[in-house]
C-alpha cells in the first residue's frame, strides 16, 4: 500500500504549484487543478479504506496496524528517533475518508462561493496545504510527526482565517486563533517532551516495560497533551478563537473549523487512548468533565447568537464537547465493559464532520444569497432556496438526533456511554442534546421561516446557489442520511474487536423525546412571524440573555487578563527593563568604545615611522616584562 504516500504528496504538489505560480495561473486553472488533485486524493483514500478493511482482521480479531511507508528522519540516539511515515489503522483510515471527502466537497463548493474573489489561486493553494497537513496529521506514525503536522494545520488555519487580509476583523481573528492554539500547543509540546524523555520514544505504543518506570509522569504528559488538543478542539476555556475564526471564508469554516481541524484534539485523545485508559484514566475523566462543561456552555451561548456562522461555531464547540465526553467516560478498553465511548466518539466525529460541513456549506449558500451573516437579514428563505432548505433541514435533524439520520445513531451511542459512566453525566448530556435540537431549529426557523426581511429581499432577491455549490450539499446530505446505517462498530472500536452496535431502547427513547421537545419548543417560539414568546423570554431574563449573547464575557475576561494584568503588570516593566537597562548597558558600551576610539584616533596618524616607534616601544615593553619575570 505504498501508494498511500501519494495521499500526502499530491496536495503538497498542488500547494507548491498553485502557490508558486500564483496569479500567473488562471483562477479556473488553479481551482480545477486543486479540485482534481483533491478528487484523486479522495479516490485514493477510499481505495485505501476499502483495501484496508477488506484485507480483514488478523488472528486476534483486530485490524492490523500497517505502516506502509516510513523513513527515519531525525535519529537522536539509538533509542530516540523521529520518524516520518504513514500509519494505517481503523481510525486513521476513517479520518482519511472524512478529510478527503469534506475537502473534496469544499473544493468543488469553493468554485461557486469564491468566484471572482481576488486571491482565488492563493485560496486554493492554502486549501491544498491544509489538506496535506491534516492528512499528514492523521496518518502520523509517531507523536512528533503528529505535532509537526499539527502546527502546519495551525498555520494553514491561520492563513485561511486571515484570507481577507484587508479586513481588520479577519486579521484579528487569525491572530487570535494562531496565538490561542499556539499557546495550547506549548502544553502539547511539553507533554511530548516529557513523554519522549521518560518513555524513550515518540511512538504511540511504547514498550510496556519502559512505561513501568514512567508511570508517575505519564499522566502529566498525557494531561499536557490534552491541553494542546483542547486548544485545537476549542475546549473551554481555550474556545475563544473558534467563533472569531468565522471571519474566514465559509467553505474554510466548513472544512477546518467544523469538520476536520477542530476534531484534531479528539483524534489526539483517541490516538493516545490505550495510554490514557491504561495509565491515566483519571486524566481521561477530567477531559470528560471539561468536554461536558464546554458542551453545555457552548450550547447555551448558541441559543442566543444572531450571526448564523457563530451559532454554527458554538454548535461545533458543543458537539466536539460531546466527542470528548464520549472518550472521557471510557473506563476500560473493552467496548462491552465501559469502552463504548471510544467507538461512539469516533462515530460522532464521522457523522458530525458530514452534517456540520453540510450546515456550514448551507450557511455559505445563504450568506451568498443575502450577503449578510445576521439572522435579521434572513427569514422566509425557504421559497427562494429549495435545495439549500431541504439539505439544511436534513442536517438540522441529524444534529438534533432524529431517527433515522446519522446524528441519531452516534449521539445515541454517546449518551449510552455517558449513562454507563454515571447517570448525572448521562442526564446532563441528554439535556445538552435537547438544547442542541432547540438552537439548531431556532437557527433553521430564523433562516427559512419566521419574518421575512422584505425591504432587503426586495432590493436584492435571494436566489438559489449555483450547481457547484448545491452538488456538494446534496452529496453531503445523502451521506448524512445514510451514514447512520454504517456498521461503524465493525470497523472502529476501543480494543479493535468487532463491536455490533445495538440501540439502547431506553436511551434512544429518552434522547428522541428530548430532541423532539427541543424542536417543538423552537417551533413554537420561532416558526411564526411574530416572536412574542422568544422576545418575552429575552426581556424577562435580560441579564442572562445579554450574558449569553456576550458569550458570558469570556473574551472580555481574556482581554482583561492579557491587557490589564499581563501586559500592564508584567510586560510593561519587562519592556522598560529591556529598553533602559539592557539596551542602556549596551548603548553605554557602544558609547564608551566610541569615545575611546575618538580619543585614540590620533595615534592612527598614517605615518609609517610613528607606527614603527610604537611597534618598537611595544616590543621593548614585552621584552622588559619577559626579562623581569
Amino acid at each position, binding site marked *: 500500500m505504498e501508494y498511500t504516500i501519494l495521499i500526502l504528496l499530491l496536495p503538497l504538489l498542488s500547494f507548491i504549484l498553485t502557490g508558486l505560480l500564483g496569479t500567473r495561473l488562471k483562477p479556473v486553472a488553479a481551482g480545477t487543478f486543486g479540485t482534481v488533485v483533491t478528487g484523486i486524493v479522495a479516490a485514493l483514500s477510499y481505495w485505501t479504506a476499502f483495501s484496508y478493511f477488506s484485507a480483514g482482521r488478523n488472528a486476534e480479531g483486530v485490524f492490523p496496524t500497517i505502516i506502509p511507508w516510513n523513513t527515519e528522519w531525525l535519529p537522536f540516539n539509538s533509542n530516540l528517533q523521529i520518524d516520518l511515515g504513514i500509519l494505517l489503522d481503523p481510525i486513521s483510515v476513517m479520518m482519511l475518508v472524512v478529510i478527503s471527502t469534506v475537502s473534496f466537497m469544499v473544493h468543488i463548493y469553493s468554485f461557486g462561493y469564491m468566484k471572482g474573489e481576488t486571491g482565488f489561486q492563493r485560496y486554493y493553494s492554502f486549501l491544498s496545504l491544509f489538506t496535506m497537513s491534516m492528512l499528514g496529521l492523521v496518518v502520523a506514525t509517531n507523536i512528533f510527526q503528529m505535532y509537526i503536522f499539527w502546527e502546519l494545520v495551525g498555520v494553514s488555519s491561520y492563513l485561511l482565517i486571515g484570507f481577507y487580509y484587508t479586513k481588520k476583523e479577519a486579521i484579528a481573528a487569525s491572530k487570535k486563533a494562531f496565538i490561542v492554539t499556539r499557546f495550547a500547543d506549548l502544553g502539547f509540546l511539553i507533554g511530548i517532551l516529557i513523554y519522549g524523555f521518560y518513555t524513550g520514544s515518540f511512538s504511540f505504543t511504547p514498550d510496556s516495560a519502559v512505561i513501568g518506570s514512567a508511570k508517575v509522569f505519564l499522566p502529566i504528559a498525557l494531561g499536557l497533551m490534552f491541553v494542546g488538543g483542547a486548544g485545537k478542539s476549542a475546549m473551554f476555556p481555550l474556545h475563544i478563537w473558534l467563533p472569531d475564526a468565522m471571519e474566514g471564508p465559509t467553505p474554510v469554516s466548513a472544512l477546518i473549523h467544523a469538520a476536520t481541524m477542530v476534531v484534531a484534539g479528539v483524534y489526539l485523545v483517541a490516538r493516545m487512548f490505550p495510554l490514557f485508559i491504561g495509565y491515566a484514566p483519571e486524566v481521561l475523566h477530567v477531559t470528560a468533565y471539561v468536554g461536558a462543561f464546554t458542551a453545555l456552555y457552548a450550547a447555551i451561548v448558541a441559543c442566543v447568537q444572531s450571526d448564523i456562522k457563530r451559532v454554527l461555531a458554538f454548535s461545533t464547540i458543543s458537539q466536539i464537547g460531546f466527542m470528548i465526553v464520549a472518550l472521557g467516560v471510557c473506563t476500560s478498553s473493552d467496548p462491552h465493559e465501559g469502552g463504548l465511548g471510544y467507538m461512539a466518539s469516533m462515530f460522532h466525529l464521522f457523522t458530525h464532520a458530514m452534517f456540520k460541513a453540510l450546515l456550514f456549506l448551507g450557511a455559505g449558500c445563504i450568506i451568498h444569497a443575502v450577503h449578510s451573516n445576521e439572522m435579521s437579514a434572513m427569514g422566509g428563505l425557504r421559497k427562494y432556496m429549495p435545495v439549500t432548505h431541504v439539505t439544511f433541514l436534513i442536517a438540522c435533524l441529524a444534529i438534533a438526533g432524529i431517527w433515522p439520520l446519522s446524528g441519531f445513531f452516534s449521539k445515541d451511542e454517546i449518551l449510552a456511554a455517558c449513562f454507563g459512566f454515571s447517570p448525572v453525566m448521562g442526564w446532563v448530556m441528554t439535556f445538552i442534546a435537547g438544547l442542541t435540537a432547540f438552537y439548531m431549529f431556532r437557527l433553521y426557523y430564523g433562516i427559512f421561516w419566521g419574518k421575512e426581511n422584505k425591504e432587503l429581499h426586495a432590493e436584492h432577491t435571494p436566489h438559489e446557489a449555483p450547481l457547484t455549490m448545491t452538488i456538494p450539499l446534496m452529496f453531503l446530505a445523502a451521506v448524512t442520511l445514510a451514514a447512520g446505517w454504517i456498521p461503524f462498530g465493525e470497523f472502529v472500536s476501543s480494543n479493535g474487536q468487532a463491536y455490533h452496535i445495538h440501540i439502547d431502547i431506553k436511551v434512544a427513547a429518552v434522547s428522541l423525546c428530548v430532541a423532539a421537545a427541543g424542536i417543538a419548543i423552537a417551533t413554537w417560539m420561532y416558526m411564526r412571524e411574530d416572536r412574542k414568546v422568544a422576545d418575552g423570554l429575552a426581556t424577562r431574563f435580560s441579564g442572562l440573555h445579554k450574558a449569553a449573547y456576550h458569550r458570558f464575557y469570556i473574551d472580555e475576561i481574556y482581554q482583561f487578563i492579557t491587557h490589564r494584568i499581563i501586559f500592564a503588570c508584567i510586560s510593561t516593566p519587562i519592556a522598560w527593563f529591556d529598553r533602559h537597562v539592557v539596551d542602556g548597558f549596551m548603548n553605554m558600551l557602544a558609547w564608551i568604545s566610541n569615545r575611546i576610539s575618538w580619543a585614540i584616533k590620533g595615534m592612527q596618524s*598614517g605615518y609609517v*615611522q610613528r607606527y614603527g616607534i610604537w611597534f618598537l616601544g611595544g616590543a621593548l615593553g614585552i621584552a622588559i616584562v619577559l626579562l623581569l619575570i
Partner: protein
Amino acid sequence: MVHMEYYLIVSTIMMFVGIYGFLTRRNLLAMLISVELILNSVDINFVVFNRFLFPGQLEGFFFALFAIGISAAETAVAIAIIINIYRNMRNIQVKNLDKMKW
C-alpha cells in the same frame, strides 16, 4: 679564533642602526636602505649561529641564502612602488604618505 659574541654584537649594532634609520629618515629610499641593513644583520646572525653552534648542518646557511634572494625580490617590488609614488606625487617623502589612516 674570534668569539661568536663579537659577531653578534656587530650584527646587533647594525640592526639597531637600521632601525634608527627606519624611524628617522624621511626619504622612502633611505628607509628602504635601512631595511636592507636590518635584513643583512639578520643574515649574519643566521650564518654565525650555523657556523658556531651547528657546524654539521646547513639550515642557517640556506636561510641566509634564501633571505638574500627574497630581499632582492622585496627590493625590486618596493622600488617599483616607490617609483610609482614618485610619478604621482613628484617626490618620495614619507611625510606626504598619510592617506592610509582611519
